């Protein structure tokens, strides 16, 4: 029975569960997207020693919501003489594919413990986990080009067309080096399955030394692979410094110049979603996924309480920062939120003495580490945007074809040699 037929033979409960998961994930991701914009603006502002959004809500926390509303209520302009079908198809394509790529990303090692089951289906922390997860991801990324290209073409306007041409060329060329750069990892794991790849980086003995990026065990440290992957991933997601498709100075806004209101928002969300998926991919492939960087030794057990040690102070800070406000925020919401956060942290900490809470704490270790790694890479994205200037187009192509591709191929060769020598048992 292959994966598809297994799906088809599932009962209703499974489907409900899956769709439930999807809905949940969508909700989370969209929210995260929204606040990612806020985060980005804040960080960039910090780097440029500005304040950034601070009007709407405390620290401008409600800015995303405002933006969302704005997108919704803006007039939806459709330029004349466009190819309607394609024009509408493009943003949908972009968003759908971007979101679809999240479906195969595993967020935690273990399914929820026994009491939490759904009509006898154990609840995994992923939507699906095919044996060729990585390939699926790449397939989706490969199709991602169409969103941009078609948008550029359908807008029936020269800047978008140029933007579309550029971006499709750029994405196609960087896809190559991206794919080549993870082959090393695949060789070491001898599998395309993401969970398999992660589980081979088990850090309980050696800590972060057993992550693909550092490990010598059964292979070769994938530092080069990681760099190639991350760079081309940035290019693949059209982010700074590779954001030529939307180079304001040259192409107005690139391929989505002609898109307004919600269709524009779709592209926007698609971009940030793909940022998330790329970051999680980095974490999974090279940085040991859900494994903590700290070896699982008796005298290091206390690190398991890192989450609470972060949550409690954060909660307290929220309370004290909140009470400054005269509005309802200061009175109710922020203190409440802070208390909640701190309380959660405290509960987790209480796991030291209370067995079930300890279970919970153990359980969230995986997701916690994975999410924090993802967060790190997201921050990296923003950081890059805040610091780096944009490349020229020819430079871009040169980096892609003449630097990244050869280097990643060399990496593949070396890794293959090492795997052949010290290969997986």
């Amino acid at each position, binding site marked *: *029975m*292959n*994966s*598809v*037929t297994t799906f*088809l*033979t599932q009962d209703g409960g499974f489907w409900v569960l899956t769709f439930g998961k999807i809905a949940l994930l969508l909700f989370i991701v969209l929210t995260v997207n929204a606040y990612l914009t806020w985060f980005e603006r804040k960080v960039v502002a910090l780097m440029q020693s500005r304040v950034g959004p601070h009007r709407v809500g405390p620290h401008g926390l409600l800015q995303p919501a405002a933006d969302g509303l704005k997108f919704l209520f803006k007039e939806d302009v459709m330029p004349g003489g466009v*190819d309607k*079908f*394609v024009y509408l*198809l493009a943003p949908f394509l972009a968003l759908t594919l971007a979101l679809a790529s999240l479906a195969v990303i595993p967020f935690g090692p273990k399914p929820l413990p026994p009491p939490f089951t759904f009509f006898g289906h154990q609840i995994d922390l992923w939507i699906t986990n*095919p*044996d*060729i997860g990585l*390939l*699926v991801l*790449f*397939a989706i*990324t*490969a*199709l991602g*080009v*169409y969103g941009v*290209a*078609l948008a*550029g*073409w359908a807008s029936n306007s020269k800047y978008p*067309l140029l933007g*579309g*041409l550029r971006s*499709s*060329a750029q994405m*196609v060329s960087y*896809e190559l080096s991206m*794919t080549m750069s993870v082959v090393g990892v695949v060789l070491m794991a*001898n599998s*395309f399955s993401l969970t398999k790849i992660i589980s081979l980086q088990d850090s309980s003995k050696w800590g972060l030394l057993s992550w693909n990026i550092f490990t010598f065990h059964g292979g070769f440290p994938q530092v080069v692979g990681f760099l190639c992957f991350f760079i081309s991933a940035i290019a693949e997601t059209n982010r700074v410094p590779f954001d030529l498709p939307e180079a304001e100075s040259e192409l107005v806004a690139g391929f989505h110049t002609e898109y307004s209101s919600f269709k524009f928002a779709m592209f926007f969300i698609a971009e940030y979603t793909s940022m998330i998926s790329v970051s999680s991919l980095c974490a999974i492939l090279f940085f040991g996924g859900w494994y903590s960087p700290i070896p699982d030794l008796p005298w290091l057990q206390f690190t398991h309480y890192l989450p609470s040690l972060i949550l409690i102070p954060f909660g307290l800070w929220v309370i004290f920062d909140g009470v400054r406000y005269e509005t309802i925020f200061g009175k109710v919401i922020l203190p409440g939120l802070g208390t909640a956060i701190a309380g959660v942290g405290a509960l987790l900490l209480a796991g030291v003495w209370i067995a079930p809470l300890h279970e919970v704490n153990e359980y969230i270790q995986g997701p916690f580490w994975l999410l924090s790694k993802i967060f790190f890479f997201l921050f990296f994205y923003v950081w890059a945007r805040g610091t780096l200037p944009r490349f020229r187009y020819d430079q871009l192509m040169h980096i892609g074809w003449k630097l990244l591709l050869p280097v990643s191929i060399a990496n593949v060769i070396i890794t293959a040699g090492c795997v052949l020598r010290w290969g997986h048992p």
Partner: protein
Amino acid sequence: MSAPLIVFFLLAALAVVGALSLILQKHPIHSALSLIVVMVSLAGLYLLMGAEFVAAVQIIVYGGAIMVLFVFVIMLLNASAEEHTDFSKLAKFGGLPLALALTGLLAAAMIHNGSAVPNNVTPDALASTTDISMSLFSTFVYPFELTSFLILVAIMGALVLAQREKKT
């Protein structure tokens, strides 16, 4: 009617519709899109058969590279809807019926003889990527090398073709 059968018919219908619309669409971009639909549904069929790797490659290479190239070229040449000319009498009168006859004939032959094909012993089991790579790099290693060479030649050919002749 088992679930796989339903899925098969859905995908098959999608593919056929895509192929038809490839024919019926006037604008190359639309044709390209419908072809992409065909390819994706074929990939789905491969998955249904259990050929996961081939499915992935189908999407990545066909969908992600070749068709992108097509779309790219269409955009580059800014191709418009095709004009309806009929310079060739033969093509005008003979082409469509003959091609349809071909279709019918092929389909008929398949329907009649297809039942002779053995249905697989291990029902739609997974074709493991490992095995494929094994036979690719052991039995078919020479063709494999040849194809790599072919690609090299193709790249050079494309470069030669694409470069503008020097204005000297």
